[in-house]
C-alpha cells in the first residue's frame, strides 16, 4: 500500500462516480460507472482482498454495466432532456457528506496504519464460505435464482 497509488485510485474512483452521477447522457454515465467500479475494485486489491476485487470486476463491470447498457438501448426512444441536477438533492448529499466526514475526522481511533497480515487466499475464502457461511451462501443462491426468474417474467411481453 503506498500513498501515490491510493491517491490515484481514489481520484479515478471518485471522478468516475461523479461523472456517472452528473453526466447528462445516460450512456456516458454508464461508461463512467464502469470506471468507478474498476477504481473500487482496485481499492479492494490494494486492501488485500484480491478475490473480492475480482468478483467486483466480474459482476459489476462485466454484468451490471452491460445490463445497464442494454437497458439504455432498450429504452432509448426516451428523448426527454434531463434538466441538470436538482440542487436540493445536492444540498442533502453535501450535508450527509459533511456530517459523515465530521464524524470520521472526529474519531481519532481511525487514524491507524494498516497492520501486517497474512495474504488472504481464495482457499481460505472458499473454506469460510463452505463452513461458517454455508447457509447465507445457499440463501444468496436462492435469491439470485428468484431474481433471475423474476426479471425474466417482468420483461416478458405482456400478453394482449
Amino acid at each position, binding site marked *: 500500500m503506498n500513498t501515490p497509488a491510493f491517491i490515484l485510485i481514489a481520484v479515478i474512483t471518485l471522478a468516475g462516480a461523479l461523472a456517472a452521477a452528473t453526466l447528462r447522457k445516460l450512456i456516458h454515465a454508464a461508461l463512467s460507472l464502469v470506471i468507478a467500479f474498476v477504481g473500487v475494485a482496485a481499492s479492494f486489491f490494494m486492501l488485500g482482498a484480491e478475490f473480492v476485487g475480482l468478483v467486483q470486476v466480474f459482476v459489476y463491470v462485466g454484468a451490471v454495466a452491460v445490463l445497464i447498457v442494454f437497458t439504455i438501448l432498450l429504452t432509448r426512444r426516451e428523448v426527454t432532456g434531463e434538466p441538470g441536477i*436538482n*440542487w*436540493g*438533492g445536492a*444540498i*442533502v*448529499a453535501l*450535508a*450527509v457528506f459533511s*456530517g*459523515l466526514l*465530521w*464524524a470520521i475526522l*472526529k474519531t481519532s481511533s481511525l487514524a491507524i496504519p494498516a497492520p501486517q497480515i497474512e495474504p488472504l487466499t481464495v482457499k481460505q475464502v472458499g473454506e469460510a464460505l463452505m463452513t461458517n457461511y454455508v447457509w447465507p451462501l445457499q440463501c444468496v443462491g436462492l435469491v439470485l435464482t428468484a431474481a433471475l426468474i423474476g426479471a425474466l417474467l417482468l420483461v416478458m411481453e405482456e400478453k394482449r
Partner: protein
Amino acid sequence: MNPWIVSNLWLVPAVPLAASLVILSLTNSRRNSAAVLATFGQIIALAVAIVAFLSTLQTPGFRAVHNFTWFTFGDQTLRIGWVLDPLAAAMMIMITLVGLCIFVFSVGYMAGDKNITRFFAYLSFFSGAMLGVVIANSLLLLFVSWELVGLASYLLIGFWIERPSAAAAAKKAFITTRIGDLGFFLGMLWLYHNSGSLLFYDQGRGCLEDAGLLAIGGSATFIALLIFCGAMGKSGQFPLHVWLPDAMEGPTPVSALIHAATMVAAGVFLVARVYPLFSLGAVNGVTPSLTVVVLVGVVTALMASLIALAQFDIKRILAYSTVSQLGLMMVSLGVGGVAAGIMHLIAHGFFKALLFLGAGSVIHGLHQEQDVRKMGGLRWIMPVTFLTYAIAMLNLSGVPFFFSGGWTKEEILHNTAQWPVSPLPDYLMLAGVILTALYMTRQMIYVFFGSKRPAVEAHESPRIMTMPLIVLASCSILFTLVLTPAWPWLHAYLNGESARVDFGSLIQPILFLSFALVAAGIGLGWFIYRNLGERDPLARAQPGLFRFLENKMWFDEIYEETVIVFCRILSRLADWLDRYFWDGLVRLFAGLGQAFGVLSKGLDDHGINAGVDETTSGTRGIGRLIAAAHSGQIQTYLGALAVGMLLLLVLYAWLS
C-alpha cells in the same frame, strides 16, 4: 389614646368618593342634585378635615397613624394606613377649602353644560383621590391615590370630549405623568425591597423611621431620585412640564382645582412627605438627591416664567406661572426649607385658585374668549373680578405685608440664600421674582387696563361665581396672620415646634430686598406695557427671542421629533419584525425541513407558489410539505431518509 378622628380619617376622602359614585349613577337630567350632592360632600369633608386639624393642635408635632392589613399574599401581609400629622392636616384643609370654593364657582360656570352631572362626579372623584394622597401613610396607598388623581385629571382635561384638542391634551397629560410614575413605581419597589415596609410611620418600623432608613442605607439617593421622577411628572417640572399648559383645555374650574391648587402640588407634597429619604445622610443639609431637586426646580422656575412672558392665552400664562411657582417650591424643599415650601404650596393654592377662577370669570364674562389681546379695560366692567384678581396678582408677585404669597416667597428666598453649595440658585430665584412681577403686570394690563378692545359684550359674573372669589381673596390675605416672622405659627406647626410672638423679627434685610425687586418688576412691567400697540412690546423689541418663548421654547416640537418619532419607529419596527421577521424565521425553520422537499420539482413548484402568495406561504408551505411528503415519489422518501439519518447523527454526536 388616639382620638376618634384618627381611625376614621378615611371619611375625608371617602365622602367625596361616595358622592361621586352616587352622582355617576344619576341621569343627566338631575343637574341640581348633582351639584348639591358634590358640594355637600365637599362640605362634610371640610368639616371632618377641620376636626382632624383641631386634634393635631393638641401637642406640637402631633402624629397619629392607623395601619391595617390590606391583603395577605403567601404568609406575608401588605399593610396600608393613614396618618394624621400637621402636613396632612394643613393640606386637607387647603384642599377641601379651595375645593369647596371651586365647586361653588363651577355651579355658575358650568351652568350651561349638558354634562354637568358627569362633571361633578369627576370633580368629586378627584377631590376624594387627592385627599387620599395627603392622608396616606403608605407609599403604596399614596401611589394608588396618586394614579387615581391622574385618572381624574385625565377625565377632566378631556371633559369636553367632542373637542379633539381636549382629547389630545388629556392623553398627553396621562402619558407624560405616567412616564414620571414609572420612576415612582420603581422607586417604590426598591424602597419596599430594602426597607421591607411601605408604611411611612409604623411604631419605629416604617420606612421613614430610623430602622427603615438604616436598612435603606446607600440606595436612598437612587430611591429618592426615582420617587422624584413621579413628582416631576405630576408637578410639571422640567423636562416633563409639557403637559401642564396643554391641560388648560379642560374647563377653567378644573384648571383651578387640579392644575393650579392641588394636584400639581402633589409632587411637592410627595417630596415633603418622604423628605427623610432625600435628606438621609445629609452633610450640612446637602445630599445629591436634594441638589438634583434644586437644579430641576431652578431650571423649571426660570424657564416657565420666561415662557409666561410671551403667551397670549390667559390660562396658559397662569399655567406657566404655576409651573414656575412649583419650581420655586421644589427649590425650597431642595435647599432644606420644607416648611417654607409647604407654606408656599398652601398660599399658592389659595391665590392661584383665585387667579384661575378670576380668569374663569373673565372668560365667562367674555363668552369663552381666552386671548388677552382681545380683552382690556375690564376693570370697570368687572369690578369684583378685578379687585380679587389684583389681590391674587400681588400675592403671586410676592408683595409682602398683607399678602401671604409675599411672606412665603420671602421665606423661600431666605432659605435659598443660605444654601451652602452655591449662591447661584439664590440669584436666579431673585431674577425669577422680577420676572414673575413682570409677566403678571403684563397680564393685568392686557386684561383689565387700557381701553376696551373690539366689540366683546362683557358682563360681571353672577353672585355664585364672585362669592368664591371673595372668599379665596380673604383667605389669601387672612392667611398672612399665621405666616409672618412676627408669629410664625404655621412654620412652627409644620415643624412640630411651638411658635413665639416676636415682632422684632419682622424687619429683615431680605424682606426689603425682595420688596424692592417686586417693585422693580411691577414698575418695569408698567413701563414696558403701559402703551400696548398692535404687537406685544417685547415682540417689537426682540422678535426672535419672543418667537422662541411664544413657541414654548419648542419643547413640544423637539419631543415630537425625537422621543415620539423614535417610539413610533420602534413600534413600526416591532410590528414589521413580527409580521415578517419572526414569522419569516419560523418559515425558515419550516424551510429547513423543506430542504429535502426541494428535491423534487413538484415540491419546488409548491414552494414557489407559497413564496409568491405572501399571505399564505408560512403555513401552507408546511401543510403542502406534509402533503408532498406523501407524494408517492421515491426520491422524496429517499431524501427524507437521508435527512433523518443526518439528524440521528447530529443527535448522537450531541448526546455522546
